């Protein structure tokens, strides 16, 4: 099937197209240069056309999610809809069911999302959920930052072993890249403890976060993985944590990049939660300037924000100790899930109310980071869904970024408390994003950061993943019309995935299976074999499943999109 999207106004940052009136053509699921006269014409005159959205960090599939859904029926109930001819019933607000997750991303014009924390032992679970989510491709990142094998080798500086282990494990669990969460801290939580800063050694293993981050970064570049290490640093959410954040980024500065497309060697996730100054919640101040300055001066870093959306949501992370602290703070029900030899996690409902000082402050810090980071290729829009808010709020965040007037109004009329500007620099920042910058932070930069070579741009040969929004950029003043911006980005006129029209006028009109993106390292077989011989005796003694039953069998990824990497060493 051939199509022409006619007369749209195209934003395709990767190809340096910023608001040009232009046709976009696709055939058999791919963008093409030319189509025949049989092509079907979709008239999108003066509407915004972008590559489909790419979300670099969210929690959408896996064991934590299901614990959240099981123990928060009151959240599930909030999003219940009746089935339609096309869609099954939806449920959930902050933790949507799998079908709802797919439909909702699709309605916003998104095509790809990263599942940011896959515990290897329960990877099959994550993959089952990915398979149950339609319409959006999913990139799972397995957790390595508290893995006992990694901790031991990091202590001994055995980078080759770590690299071989990562290469094997990505294949065994079908993962895309290396995720690190509170390195050493989550292991310390195995004993009810935590670590503070990157030089605080974890009990028994006696290794520090600095050593673990560096070792994994070196392994990542040794293999030349498409994505860099993806880090949730220590001390999340603690006043005074920004030096830990900067130190975590700085400690890999000397490690050379080895990968084709991306620029960075470290991706900092939900930077908002890691950019606080002060010493306690009494005297907390924004550290956004310091973190943004570091990012502005260092091209080896990219980040996503984790913007607070001022909703009641569900926090969930592999940062087990942080979640217990949060429970101590708000007294709401606490779930925890520790995974043998690998990782942990915690879950707590949280109400980010604009009537309370701390959420208002966090809201301000997130926006401040967006506005201070100069190069949009170094930043992505996220809410760390569902941690700082549900992903369905992306359109609202876009409206905030495009309108200084709206932000000022919120601070003036009390939608957020004074801490939003008194404790942050937000009040002094009047920058407004334009559509091209929005296109960058919601698709192009994420695609580049992940080294995707098939999506995130409207380049011939790429997947025909395209979003059309019902806005005429020459006609609308986003600064003055935030509600219209939010509505348009929340209800795509078209969402096209692999050349198929999935959404029309904000409604899902077609449901297709999603793809699972994972990385297959080639050329490291010898090292992998050696390392597996070392791993197996320990595996057999201390895991409670057999290795054969640990692996993710092929049928758990019925539609894989495999990135093959030639390890260069």
């Amino acid at each position: 099937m051939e199509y022409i999207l006619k007369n749209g106004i195209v934003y395709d940052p990767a190809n340096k197209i910023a608001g040009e009136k232009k046709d976009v053509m696709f055939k058999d699921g791919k963008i093409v240069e030319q189509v025949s006269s049989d092509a079907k014409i979709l008239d999108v005159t003066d509407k915004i056309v972008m590559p489909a959205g790419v979300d670099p960090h969210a929690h959408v599939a896996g064991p934590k999610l299901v614990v959240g859904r099981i123990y928060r029926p009151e959240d599930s109930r909030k999003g219940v809809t009746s089935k339609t001819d096309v869609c099954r019933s939806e449920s959930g607000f902050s933790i949507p069911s799998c079908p709802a997750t797919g439909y909702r991303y699709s309605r916003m014009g998104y095509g790809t999302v990263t599942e940011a924390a896959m515990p290897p032992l329960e990877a099959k679970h994550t993959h089952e959920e990915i398979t149950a989510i339609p319409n959006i491709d999913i990139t799972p990142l397995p957790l390595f930052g508290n893995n006992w094998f990694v901790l031991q080798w990091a202590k001994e500086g055995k980078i080759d072993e770590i690299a071989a282990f990562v290469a094997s494990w990505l294949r065994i669990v079908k993962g895309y890249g290396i995720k690190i969460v509170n390195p050493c801290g989550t292991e310390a939580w195995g004993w009810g403890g935590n670590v503070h800063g990157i030089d605080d050694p974890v009990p028994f293993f006696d290794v520090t976060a600095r050593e673990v981050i560096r070792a994994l970064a070196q392994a990542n570049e040794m293999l030349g993985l498409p994505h860099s290490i993806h880090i949730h640093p220590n001390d999340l959410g603690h006043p005074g944590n920004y030096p830990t954040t900067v130190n975590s980024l700085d400690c890999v500065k000397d490690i050379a990049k080895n990968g084709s497309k991306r620029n960075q060697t470290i991706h900092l996730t939900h930077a908002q939660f890691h950019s606080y100054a002060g010493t306690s919640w009494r005297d907390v101040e924004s550290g956004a300037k310091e973190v943004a300055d570091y990012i502005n001066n260092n091209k080896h870093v990219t980040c996503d924000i984790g913007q607070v959306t001022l909703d009641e949501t569900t926090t969930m992370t592999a940062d087990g100790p942080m979640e217990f602290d949060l429970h101590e703070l708000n007294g709401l029900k606490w779930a925890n899930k520790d995974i043998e030899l690998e990782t942990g996690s915690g879950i707590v409902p949280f109400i980010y109310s604009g009537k309370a000082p701390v959420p208002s402050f966090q809201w301000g810090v997130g926006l401040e980071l967006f506005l201070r980071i100069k190069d949009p290729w170094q930043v992505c829009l996220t809410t760390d869904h569902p941690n700082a808010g549900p992903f369905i709020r992306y359109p609202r965040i876009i409206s905030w970024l495009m309108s200084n007037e709206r932000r000022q109004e919120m601070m003036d009329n009390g939608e957020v408390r004074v801490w939003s500007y008194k404790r942050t620099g937000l009040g002094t920042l009047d920058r407004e994003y334009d559509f091209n910058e929005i296109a960058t932070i919601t698709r192009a930069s994420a695609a580049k950061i992940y080294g995707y070579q098939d999506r995130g741009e409207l380049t011939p040969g790429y997947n025909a993943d395209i979003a059309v929004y019902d806005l005429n950029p020459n006609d609308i003043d986003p600064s003055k019309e935030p509600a219209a911006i939010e509505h348009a980005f929340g209800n795509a006129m078209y969402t096209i995935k692999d050349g198929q029209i999935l959404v029309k006028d904000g409604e899902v009109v077609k449901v297709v299976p999603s793809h699972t993106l994972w990385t297959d390292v080639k050329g490291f077989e010898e090292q992998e074999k050696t390392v597996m011989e070392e791993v197996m005796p320990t595996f057999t003694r201390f895991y409670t499943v057999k290795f054969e039953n640990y692996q993710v069998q092929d049928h758990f990824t019925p539609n894989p999109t495999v990135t093959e990497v030639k390890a260069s060493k």
Partner: protein
Amino acid sequence: MAYEPPVTDYDEIVENGTCAFCGCNCDDLDFLIKDGHVVGVRHACRLGASKVMEDMDQRLLVPMVRDENGELQEVDWDTALDKAAELIAGSVRPIFYGWSETSIETMKHGIHLGELVGAVLDNQATICHGPSLQAVQNVGYPVATLGEVKNRADMIVYTGSNPMNSHPRHMARYSTFPRGWFRQRGRFDRTVVTMDPKYSDTAKMSDIWIGFEQNGDYGFYNAIRAALRGKEIDQDFVSGIPKEDIMELAEAMKNVQFGALYFGLGLTHTLSKQRNIDMAIEMLTDLNKYTKWVLTPMRGHFNVNGFNIFMALEMGFPYGVDFARGYPRYMNGETNTIDLLTRKECDVFMVIAADPGAHYPGGAVKHLAEIPVIQVDIHWGPSTEIADVVLPGSFIGLECAGTSYRMDGVPIYMKKAIDKPETCRDDEWIIQELHERVKKIKAKEAAVASK
């Protein structure tokens, strides 16, 4: 147990097989196979082994439909499936119950069928750990995988549970006896506590037995929590336990390095039901202020947790999900099997790999005898006696592969070791067939209606 000589006469061994019995879901079994039959099992406990070995006993082999005279008659698959589909399509308040002893792959077809006709999908949690899940929904769910406990725990508490009988390898393979990374001496590095009104087999194996009185659980945990907060207990005895013992236990629990609490149905089925667990979970949360504690419900069937996980990921609710109104609804006391049966609302009951009679209250069983029942199972059982349609399935983890979730949520792909009897079908296929056939009936109805 009498001595049985080891089996030596077999053709092949299938290693790393899984036990489809209790919530431990042990995945280290060796099946010894001769002529396409299992002649021996290694590593399984007696419960698991007997399930595999006695497999052909009472086996349902042929589809059956009950005739006008009330006798089950053997029929072909088409006849049986059409009959079942017709019953389901015509029902107003259908329940599809069971699922805890079949695969996730089967459930996938089940939920589509349930959404299509507007059924209630429910599993054994409704009579077993339902109260635990309600408590989890009220106060939280701090869990850990079994290996965390094996590698770290120096105190293990079993409450309202007797794993020596119900989960025979729980202590041996996962919690108490095995040598762990930080517990190199295994059993010697751990203190085992059993809280149970009965002096059970597990209590006999334990270092400490707390025999609080029947129905005293809620008051007992409340007192421990008060003690943890430094309150001097007022009463000399709480729930039959001397106050000194309570203070001492609270202190001991505070001072371990890693504690694990496993609770069973004993705790969920007393007077204050879900609130016992509610209180136990909060007690454990309190303990985390001092040191590390985790808990896990001792789930009974190997995939009872799997159904809860599956329903939650598909529809946001763990069990008792009612699709009658065209959207999922979850309301304890309203959308659960027992309530719908005792209220005599259910008009067609499909039971998938479960035995509804055993744990149901009398009224519910009586109603079952009055309505059409469809059974999908591998063995002749009480539900066969009341079934109007019998659809013989296959043995998951032995004759047919499938995914399950262990009591701690670890997913396991249970592989196939032997072929099923020729006349049987896989559960997955049966439910898919039913879905297809009901879809056809519904499409026909819609076509008629639109004319």
